[in-house]
């Protein structure tokens, strides 16, 4: 009975076996790349690491609805799962983590996690929190002005809703019914500050005040996120306006490699959330539906680990930019 019910879930979303395996593979790739980056940090090779661990379902479930290179993504610094799904590779990620010249995001100029790809319409990301929201609204307005069905997706953590840019963008998106989706990955912590000191009331409910739908979704359930994002993308493409999605999730690592989270949260809390790990949950779903047995899972994991090892090794051996390249490309030539 339970299996019948869950099986109906992905089928009712129009997802086939290959879709599910692709979702799973990308979640696992994001996790393995992330884990490898911490090793590089501990080895002294990566100066700074910032993680997506715990948020893979929220990211992959959303991004799977996008048309890479057509729709626009304004990611935030944890969205490596999204950028990997849209077409960046583990090699791209390691080139960025190690600051190498070939890094397609910035050529070694930006910290890791500051994603960019002109080809994939991943708009260059910043460190100040929340600045992407007005930009995404503007990008959505351009689609609307030209009568195109493109969508702009913009993401941030729960703390990114505390500043004015978020309100300005939500208001503007509501006024003009813009094809923009605000994905808030509520992972409970802004470095050390918990969401109870960050967020009054409900983030999702705020959308009502701007006259568009806001949905709260289990951010560790990739199918639930996929469903919410599918509806949001459909609305945007049809010209029905914006959607706010609040994906409730949890940051499984410290804020970054420079942070020690033992100063501000209990180990027990993390262990509780580990039981809700989005990858383990999806493995369970796939297993229950007879789509992935232990052998297949192991084979896929070995393939991914080999790819990640190769990508890491490539990036470790790749050259840095020459020092004087820091002086180039300040202004674009007319």
């Amino acid at each position, binding site marked *: 009975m339970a299996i019948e019910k869950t099986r109906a879930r992905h089928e009712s979303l129009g997802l086939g076996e290959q879709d599910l395996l692709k979702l799973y593979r990308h979640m696992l790739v994001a996790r393995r790349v992330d884990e490898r980056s911490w090793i590089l940090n501990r080895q002294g090779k990566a100066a700074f690491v910032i993680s997506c661990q715990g948020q893979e379902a929220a990211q992959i479930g959303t991004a799977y609805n996008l048309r890479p290179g057509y729709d626009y993504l304004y990611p935030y610094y944890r969205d490596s799962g999204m950028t990997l799904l849209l077409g960046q590779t583990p090699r791209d990620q390691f080139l960025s983590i190690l600051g190498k010249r070939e890094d397609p995001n910035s050529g070694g100029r930006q910290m890791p996690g*500051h994603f960019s790809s002109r080809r994939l319409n991943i708009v260059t990301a*910043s460190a100040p929190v929340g600045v992407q929201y007005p930009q995404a609204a503007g990008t959505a307005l351009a689609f609307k002005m030209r009568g195109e069905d493109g969508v702009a997706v913009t993401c941030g953590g729960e703390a990114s809703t505390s500043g*004015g840019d978020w309100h300005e*963008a939500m208001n503007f998106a509501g006024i003009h019914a813009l094809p923009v989706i605000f994905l808030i990955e509520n992972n409970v912590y802004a470095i050390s500050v918990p969401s109870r000191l960050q967020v009054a009331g409900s983030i999702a409910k705020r959308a009502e005040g701007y006259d568009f739908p806001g949905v709260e979704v289990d951010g560790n359930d990739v199918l639930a996120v996929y469903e919410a994002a599918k509806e949001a993308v459909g609305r945007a493409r049809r010209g029905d306006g914006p959607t706010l999605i609040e994906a409730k999730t949890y940051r499984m690592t410290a804020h970054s490699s420079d942070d020690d989270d033992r100063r501000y949260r209990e180990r027990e809390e993390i262990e509780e959330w580990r039981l809700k790990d989005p990858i383990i949950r999806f493995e369970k779903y796939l297993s229950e539906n007879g789509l992935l047995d232990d052998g297949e899972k192991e084979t896929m994991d070995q393939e991914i680990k080999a790819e990640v090892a190769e990508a890491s090794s490539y990036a470790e051996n790749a050259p840095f930019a020459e020092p004087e390249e820091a002086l180039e490309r300040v202004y674009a030539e007319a």
Partner: protein
Amino acid sequence: MSEKNLLQAIHDGLAEEMRADETVMVLGEDVGRAGGVFRVTQGLQEEFGPERVLDTPLAESLIVGSALGLSVNGMRPVAEIQFADFIPPAFDQIINEAAKFYYRSNGAWTVPITIRAPYGVVPGGALYHSQSIEAWFCNTPGLKVVAPTFPADAKAMLKSAIRDPNPVLFLEHKRTYRLIKEDVPEDGHEVPLNKARVHREGEDITVVSYGLMLYTALEVAGKLSDEHGIETAVVEPRTLYPLDREKILNSVKKTGKLLVISEANVTGSVSGEIAAVVSQEAFEWLDAPVMRLGAPDVPAAAFARPMMDAFVPSAEKIEAAMLELARY
């Protein structure tokens, strides 16, 4: 060719670019039906519609941030900040975002946006409709800051700014909007964003100035020539960042004396940068200390007229400074 004031010239520049390129658009507070508080965008919404001439909410960070987002998706927006004094909420979007997109993406993302902002003291304007904010932005590689003074230059430079692939802050001294008229070419007149303009040649002193102060300096230069036989070279930077150092240095190397005049607070000003460049690069040609004249270091111009007049360098103060330098 017809006679236009600065305001009309900027209006015409906008309208011509919008006719020539359907990706050019205007957004800001009151730019639509009202045509802007200064009437710069008057009639544009009637001609181009409410989307391409878009009234935005009162939110400067949104105005610039959304312009940025429009620009990376095929548009060439001209964002209007109603008064330069109100630009600080957009500071992050200008300094950290627009000015750094190209560099931080290693040349992948260009940001063809123009941000128009009326600046400068005007009677009745008081602290928050008067400020000269250029120095805040002239320390930001990746951004161009232009401040043309004369109508023909302004129209041509606005067109250059709109066509430029980089973010350009376009400053308009509001007290000069209707001050003079001059012949403004219909089209074809081009002024690049990296060239200063020599308004007057002279052997005795060099004055570098822009905005309302430039008009005063030119008048005083004529007077000093007539009454004292002192010949003043007057150079207008037109683009404040990056500076056309060469034209300024060439003039100072001929006269050996430099006075920089602006309406901004002197400390930390663009005038200070010009003075530093000349002191370093033309030291051996100098016959006098480099001088600066500007507003005193008080927050901004006051509302009451006598106090406002005390803030802005007067023709008398400018004349005294030029004479002092000539006689040094």
